[in-house]
């Protein structure tokens, strides 16, 4: 599949935005199809089977979060959400519903393309035979071996730190909300204990990042969650 140009569906009601997104993606060699409404978008998604979806949250006919839930019923394709609203709760709701990433309006083309690439790479990884070794910011994580090295030196992680890192690595590029991480690492009864997560995240940064106050890879999405950025 990777030899074929990937198909990207853009659901956006604003013509000008649709226009430049379409142009930018096409210039990068992607195959683009468009939809103006949620209804039209769902039909397109079902018939064209796109590899990635760019979805505006503020559609005229339906709430974007509902659209994501519908899609997630039958598709695993990466979803990037565009949001004109500034409140974090909207983003969290979209991510919890199954979106992979979000972009706040206004955004530049460079930023959009970067997110699209990350999403597609995730997709590729999902299809490819499981690679057990991931590298980022000078850190090498061997999931099969449970081995973490920084600049060639073994880093000792506690069990929880390791579970947290492994979760981020498996979802590299995707924004994980606090709730999602807490449920995965600590279990469903700890979803409110965000300060646990923050402490462990801080410890991971101290052990893995060169400068823990200016992380390059273990990024914070303020008020939303975390994301591991593979360089």
């Amino acid at each position, binding site marked *: 599949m990777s030899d074929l140009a990937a198909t990207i569906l853009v659901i956006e009601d604003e013509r000008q935005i649709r226009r430049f997104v379409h142009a930018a993606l096409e210039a990068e060699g992607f195959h683009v199809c468009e939809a103006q409404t949620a209804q039209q978008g769902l039909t397109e998604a079902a018939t064209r089977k796109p590899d990635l979806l760019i979805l505006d949250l503020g559609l005229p006919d339906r709430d974007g979060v509902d659209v994501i839930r519908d899609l997630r019923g039958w598709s695993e394709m990466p979803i990037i959400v565009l949001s004109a609203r500034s409140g974090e709760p909207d983003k969290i709701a979209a991510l919890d519903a199954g979106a992979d990433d979000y972009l706040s309006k206004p955004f530049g083309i460079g930023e959009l393309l970067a997110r699209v690439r990350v999403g597609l790479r995730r997709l590729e990884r999902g299809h490819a035979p499981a690679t057990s070794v991931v590298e980022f910011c000078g850190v090498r994580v061997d999931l099969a071996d449970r081995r973490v090295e920084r600049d060639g030196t073994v880093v000792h992680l506690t069990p929880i730190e390791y579970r947290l890192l492994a979760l981020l690595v498996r979802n590299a590029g995707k924004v994980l909300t606090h709730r999602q991480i807490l449920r995965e690492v600590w279990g469903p009864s700890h979803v409110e204990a965000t300060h646990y997560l923050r402490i462990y995240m801080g410890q991971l940064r101290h052990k893995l990042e060169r400068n823990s106050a200016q992380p390059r890879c273990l990024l914070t999405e303020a*008020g939303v969650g975390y994301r591991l950025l593979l360089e």
Partner: protein
Amino acid sequence: MAESKDGRPDPDELLDRVQREQEKARRGKLKIFFGASAGVGKTYAMLSAARQLRAQRHDVVVGIAETHGRAETVALLEGLEILPLRDIEYRGKWLKEFDLDAALRRRPVLILIDELAHTNVPGSRHAKRWQDVEELLAAGIDVYTTLNVQHLESLNDIVGGITGIRVWETVPDKVFDQADEISLLDLTPDELLQRLKEGKVYIAQQAEGAIQNFFRKGNLIALRELSLRRTADRVDDQMRTYRQERSIEAVWQTKESLLVCVGPKPGAEKVIRGAARIASQLGVDWHAVYVETPRLQRLPEAERARILRTLKFAHELGAQVATLAGHDAIETLIDYAHSRNLAKLVVGRDYKGWMPWRHSFADRIGRRSTDLDVVQIVRDAPSPQATVASARFSPPRPRVENLWQPYAQAAAICILATVTATLLSPFINLVNTAILFLLAVVVAAARYGRGPAVLAAVLSVGLFDFFFVPPRFSFAASDAQYLLTFGVMLAVALIIGRLASNLRYQGRVTENREGRLRALYEMARDLSAVLVPEQIIDLSHEFIEGTFGVKMAILLADEHDKLQPAKPASDGQVAPDVDLGIAQWCFDHVEPAGFSTNTLAGSPILYLPLRAPMRTRGVLAVEPVNPRWLLIPEQRRQLDGFTALIATALERVHYIEVAQNAIVKIESERLRNSLLSALSHDLRTPLTALVGLADSLAQGPPGLSASQQEAAQAIRDQAFRMSSLVNNLLDMARLQAGEIRLRREWQPLEEVIGSALKAQEGQLARHHIRVALPADLPLLDFDAVLIERVLSNLLENAAKYTPPGTEVVIEAALVDHEARISVADNGPGLAPGSEEAVFEKFTRGERESSTPGVGLGLAICRAVVEAHGGRIWAERSPGGGACFVFTLPAGTPPETPALADEQALLGQRRVVHE
């Protein structure tokens, strides 16, 4: 009122005592230096005690001290702070008086007020000095004062009887009984006489002879006994209270109250005083009632006024008073006593008069009811003061009736009977003729009352005798049995007349009562429908002026609790000349003031507080046309009823307003919210298109010249600037509306610094960043998004106002239970003196600067930090540049999982790690 058998205190009583103690704790303490007569050294003792306290650095002030020029007493005043006296003009003379307002302003811990029984100069706020003292105590100021035994209200007549000198300046017993401490100054009569001889006792100039008479040894012994006994009674009370409090060998009494019957005979004051004394000795409540029977209703106005004054006197002494209506005084009294569980009746003693067979009032009560104790008290001779005072009330006759008319009509009825009997005489016999005349008498009695009935009886007998009894047309009766006819007719006239007048009286009473109830009902009904305060004012005018025929005004409190006249009297309403000072006093103290009250009784207007369940809403000022009117308890009670209705209505309307405001606020908030989110959506969408289209221009197919490339880049940057401007404006609008709810969570500061630096990456690309955080900085409780915003704004500022290459340092430290976070640069720094101004909205670092920004950034920072309970300020950094510092309170972070606990946390899903 069952006696508590198990010896435990009655819960009601305990509650009562707790409330009394709470009340007391807020009040000042009263200490009375009590003595048998002048000259025992009360003032001296009081000043000595004050000096001792002064020496212990207590805040003591002399309010007023009568030294009477005695050197040793004057010497004691040395070194004490003395309040200046007030000058009051009275009948052209300037008199000195204690200055209550000055004392309240000065607010000492303890104030000395000599001569508790003193009567203030007319024009002072209170008529009596003890009322001044009450107000001082209520304000929480302790008071020392002096009192002689003859000035105690209940002992007043006894002392008068012993010494032959009556004192008119009296103090109610409750003041004495409620004093916190009594200090008895005791001197043997011989010592006192010795002091008198040495000239150490002050004697007023004018009545030297009488006073000399007063200081006889016999008198002094009697006074000494009285004062000792009164003090002993008090100590006894204290002992009893102490026992009750400690529940030691409890002596529980059933609470039986006293009922005093006020009669029309003069001298009732003495009965009242006696009853007050008994009630206080028994420690029970007491009631005073006056039963107005048809007979008493016909009393002259002056006497009725005297009865009402007696009732008011009883009220002042602490009784609950009422006037009852009924045609049989005894039955009404007994009913009243039973309904209120009053076991003892106190009545004045009757003397055997000219009808030796007639039973006294007390006996008659005893015959009718077997379960009531009756106490008889000897009446006073009519006091001269009472006569003088009663002359003050001019007696306007309420109803001017045509007095002869009923008599004429009674006569007419008799003549009609005669004519009818004459016409019928051929057909009826003499007995039936007599019955006809009897009918005439009954009709006259029933319609016109006793007097006309008697006239009708006499006329009927006369006419019957003259026209019908043989020999006709002469008064000579052949048969003595017509004397009986005459007697029966007279008796019937009297009995029916009495019955009818009683019925009419009862009818009138019922009508009055019904009228009062109807007025209250109608007012309640009308007030329940009003929606604005103006309507309440109008309705109050209508009802109060209509019902009582008085002038009135309502004053409402504004938001600062200052009274304002509700509205100028309109169309024909005459507003009374309201004294705002008195009204304010009444409002502040929530007590009636002015006419017929204890406070500023000289005013012709009565001020009543409008007290609603939640708070006092204002004051009702009423100026009665006839002063007697307010002394009638029923009228007063109805006025109180109106007052309560008005106050409740005002409160209800107030809450309607509050509710409406709340609804308007909710609506406007909803509107603002939808407006803001619409704005945010509608502004961002075109900006997104702008940025994207500029990007596609710049990154599109090659062929753009360098300047075109630059233009595309500029469009992009401007669009982003616009976007951050929109963000700032929207945030400021939300923060200002106070609607941003903080999503506070415990988190490390490092994380939010990291995300802020990431967000400002582009701006700070050419600056050196250094972050210095102490390793042991605890978790802080804050809203990550908003604090990131603060840091971003501060970093953006640093980037904007300093040249490239500048070092920006972020530091944090824990100082005095707060985290202090600073963002400092070594750039040009802020202009001196502008450190505060930069936080004002729309202020920027430099005037007319080319550097972009609306200056909202720092205002937002301040709003966010203050919402977190912190502070933010600007200062000069050590390196010479600008330094912005903000603080966040350091609370107690929640438990954090220790690393050792991890295994337990993970449970069975343990991960083995090499």
